[in-house]
């Protein structure tokens, strides 16, 4: 056998409070030396569980059967992870197979220096290794993954690195023993697109320079197109399709794969509902007008505050959808919350439905609230877990529509649920008894309960699967067309914003750096940051992505980093 990894008929089940859950169902796959195999599939389809099985990291509540055969890089030994002894398993880990985790900040022990943590892996496999040479090896590997000043940085603690650097360190740890196989579970999901591009580059070098095979787990089809040689599609614990990357994208076979690919949002893609969107009343008084808006979070204990939004100006006209994009922490949510009156405006002017929010009094604003809807990012936490969906959706009605009696309210709730295409009977369920997509729809229903003039949607789909996301976006567009509300649509995903928004605003470090229609901003970005943002976004097409990758490299070479 020449394959680095061979999985045969793997079954994994978990004991849970709700009984047994089968996570992986008769999965078989192989990985050849130097190959990058991507595992894709919807959330919960068993990708992570499969990955963990390869390293024997499943929790005690798991039961497995089947075979997972790992070959060492030099081909000297082969082990079946499922049956091997604990001690042997420990020896394999790190040496033959290694792992890169999704969330770099949690994969690093906060209280030890990165050098110590790298050396820890070395020492686990060679107890005679001196501290000095372990350190030398750590510096060496940090150099290789592109950490500047590795001699100094080796003594840094994880929190002293940026997110992307942390992920590099995690990769360095995986590489240090030169394993034949690296399992990377969503290695870029927690990162901004620009950083993601760098990490993908590094992973590619792992394969090219170290000759490691990679099992890449992701649900981002762009990443797959960028990096993978071969793709395995999982659905409900099973492998439904397996093909090399080009043929999969060009010619998907399985229904699920087709739907998955279709659901991935692309820039420039228009959906039918968005085409029929409500007219924008440009002449009317804008619903929201921000003028040199400044928002500062007070500092703790006399420290100077933090300026999250710094001199932003924009307007939203009735019926208009403004898309707000930008990297994490750029101040998107802050703006949204300020419009809803949840965060205090500290400078400039922000007028919402003709009320000035700077110096706003809660009492006077409360009446206006019935005209504003808010859809939160995480559908799970935006519902009171102790109230049923009906009660939750009825809440705004109970507060503002004192004229309605219980029956009228319940009828209205029924209508609302149907409007977001949830069967009425779902109203009796508790939030945790709904799926994420259903919850997000219920959340939309609640936001629309009072026929708002303005809807603020703060990353309403980022917690959702691409497939479900597609449905919710479509629904959103439909309702907007029907009801004609103005909307602030916040997202970090350029493609998503492009689908829905009339105009797009790009936020960078609290400043608005570019604003215009989708075609203007995404078609011909003027600001270098927007350009990089756009170029970093991997597209779900291996051929096109190879092209973009080159462009990005040129861009970075040409422009000094911001």
């Amino acid at each position: 056998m020449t394959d680095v990894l061979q999985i045969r008929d793997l079954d994994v089940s978990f004991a849970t409070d709700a009984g047994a859950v089968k996570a992986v169902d008769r999965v078989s796959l192989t990985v050849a030396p130097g190959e990058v195999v991507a595992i894709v599939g919807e959330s919960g389809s068993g990708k992570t569980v499969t990955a963990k099985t390869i390293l024997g990291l499943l929790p005690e509540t798991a039961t497995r059967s089947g075979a997972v055969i790992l070959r060492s890089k030099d081909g000297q030994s082969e082990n079946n992870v499922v049956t091997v002894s604990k001690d042997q398993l420990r020896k394999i880990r790190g040496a033959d197979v290694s792992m890169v985790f999704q969330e770099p900040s949690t994969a690093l022990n906060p209280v030890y220096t990165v050098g110590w943590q790298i050396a820890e892996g070395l020492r686990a496999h060679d107890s005679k290794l001196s501290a000095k040479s372990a350190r030398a090896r750590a510096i060496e590997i940090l150099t290789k993954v592109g950490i500047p000043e590795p001699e100094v940085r080796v003594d840094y603690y994880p929190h002293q690195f940026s997110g992307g650097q942390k992920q590099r360190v995690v990769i360095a740890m995986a590489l240090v023993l030169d394993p034949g196989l690296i399992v990377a579970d969503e290695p870029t999901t927690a990162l901004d697109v620009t950083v993601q591009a760098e990490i993908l580059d590094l992973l590619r070098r792992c394969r090219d320079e170290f000759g490691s095979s990679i099992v890449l787990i992701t649900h981002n089809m762009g990443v797959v197109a960028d990096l993978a040689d071969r793709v395995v599609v999982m659905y409900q614990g099973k492998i439904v399709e397996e093909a090399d990357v080009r043929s999969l994208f060009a010619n998907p076979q399985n229904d699920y794969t087709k739907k998955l690919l279709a659901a991935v949002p692309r820039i420039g893609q228009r959906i039918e509902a968005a085409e029929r969107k409500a007219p924008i009343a440009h002449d009317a008084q804008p619903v929201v007008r921000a003028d040199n808006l400044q928002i500062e979070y007070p500092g703790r204990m006399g420290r100077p505050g933090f300026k999250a939004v710094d001199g932003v100006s924009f307007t939203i006209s009735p019926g208009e959808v403004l898309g707000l994009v930008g990297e994490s922490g750029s101040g998107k949510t802050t703006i949204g919350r300020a419009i809803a009156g949840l965060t205090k405006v500290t400078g400039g002017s922000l007028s919402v439905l003709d009320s000035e929010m700077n110096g706003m009094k809660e009492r006077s604003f409360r009446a206006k609230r019935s005209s504003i809807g808010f859809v939160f990012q995480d559908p799970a936490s935006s519902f009171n877990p102790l109230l049923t969906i009906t009660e939750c959706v009825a809440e705004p009605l109970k507060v503002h529509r004192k004229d309605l009696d219980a029956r009228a309210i319940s009828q209205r709730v029924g209508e609302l649920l149907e409007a977001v295409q949830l069967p009425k009977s779902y109203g009796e369920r508790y939030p945790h008894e709904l799926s994420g997509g259903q919850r997000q729809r219920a959340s939309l229903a609640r936001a629309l309960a009072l026929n708002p003039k303005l809807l603020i949607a703060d990353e309403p789909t980022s917690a959702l699967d691409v497939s479900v996301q597609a449905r919710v976006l479509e629904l959103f567009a439909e309702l907007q067309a029907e009801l004609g509300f103005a909307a602030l649509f916040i997202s970090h995903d350029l493609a998503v914003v492009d689908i829905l928004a009339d105009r797009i605003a790009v936020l960078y470090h609290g400043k608005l750096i570019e604003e215009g229609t989708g075609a203007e901003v995404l078609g011909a970005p003027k600001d270098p940051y927007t350009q990089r943002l756009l170029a970093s976004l991997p597209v779900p097409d291996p051929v096109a992505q190879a092209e973009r990758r080159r462009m990005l490299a040129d861009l970075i070479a040409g422009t000094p980093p911001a």
Partner: protein
Amino acid sequence: MAITTPTAAPSRKKSMWRRLPIVHQLSQSVGIQRGMLVTGLVLTAVFVLTALLAPLLAPYGYSQLRDESGAFGAQRPPSAEHLFGTTVGGYDVLSRVIWGAQTALSVVVVAVLLSIFAGVALGLISGYFGGWLDRVLVVICDAIYAFPTLLLAIVMSIAISGGQSSLWGGIFAAAISITVVFIPQYFRVIRAETVRIKSEAYVESAKVVGTGNIRIMFRHVLRNATRTLPLIFTLNASEAILTLAGLGFLGFGIEPTSASEWGFDLNKALSDVSSGIWWTSVPVGLALVLAVLGMTLVGESLNDLADPRLRGRRAVAAASGTVAETSVVPGGSLTAGPGGLDGLENEGRS
């Protein structure tokens, strides 16, 4: 990683019953965790039953010194009439132990209830409204918290015992002393929960629709903030018993003629222990230890079960065995089921 959410909920009635505190946890627990919980529950049940049925169970009254056949006599060794002998004061040890459970339970219940009400109310208001009131309350509670509990209870019991002590007077005095010690604890827990919940999206969404403060406080915050109470309750209950015993030991507790109190009896028995009279202290000490053990076990088990990381689960028989196709995913599956695309396609577009 989200844990599976069963979309098809079992019948609601059953789930209500199952969701009751304790019952829920009991059904969740497995193996040694269940063993500890069950042990704790049994011990606690025995304790509570003994307390409730004391008048039936105890052969004599707690302050009874004589019966028809005359005085019991002091420090009599165990015999047929007095299974655990008599104390230095001439009481029947067994009866004192049994009645002691009643005192302990009364004190625990009164103390914990009082402190829950006071602590929860203060914590809720303080955490929800914040501002200077919050700051003042926090500083006060921290100050009280910084004071050794037993000493605080002593100070309080001196302040309270100005009035005369009767059975309930004594119990209330002890309970209030303990209450003062506990209020800061409940205050802190509820306040912390309130502060956390206050920034939860569902409270914000209530704010966004313009819900009033009172409504938010009771409808959204309070009910969600009290999840941890059963747990703290059990842990505080055992602490209350120990504090009461400490008070009794130092002579600030309840008098033998007003009620039977374990700490007091143990204190009295100290001379006996070194004089080779074991029966006056061992049953009392054991009762005390077991009651505390029981409640602490319950509390700890609840703690473990409340924390998914600490909760153990029953092993699944075999990988391919019992498993149903339950891996319905949080996002809603793409094709099947009402939440999936197909479902949407079918019901939607009406």
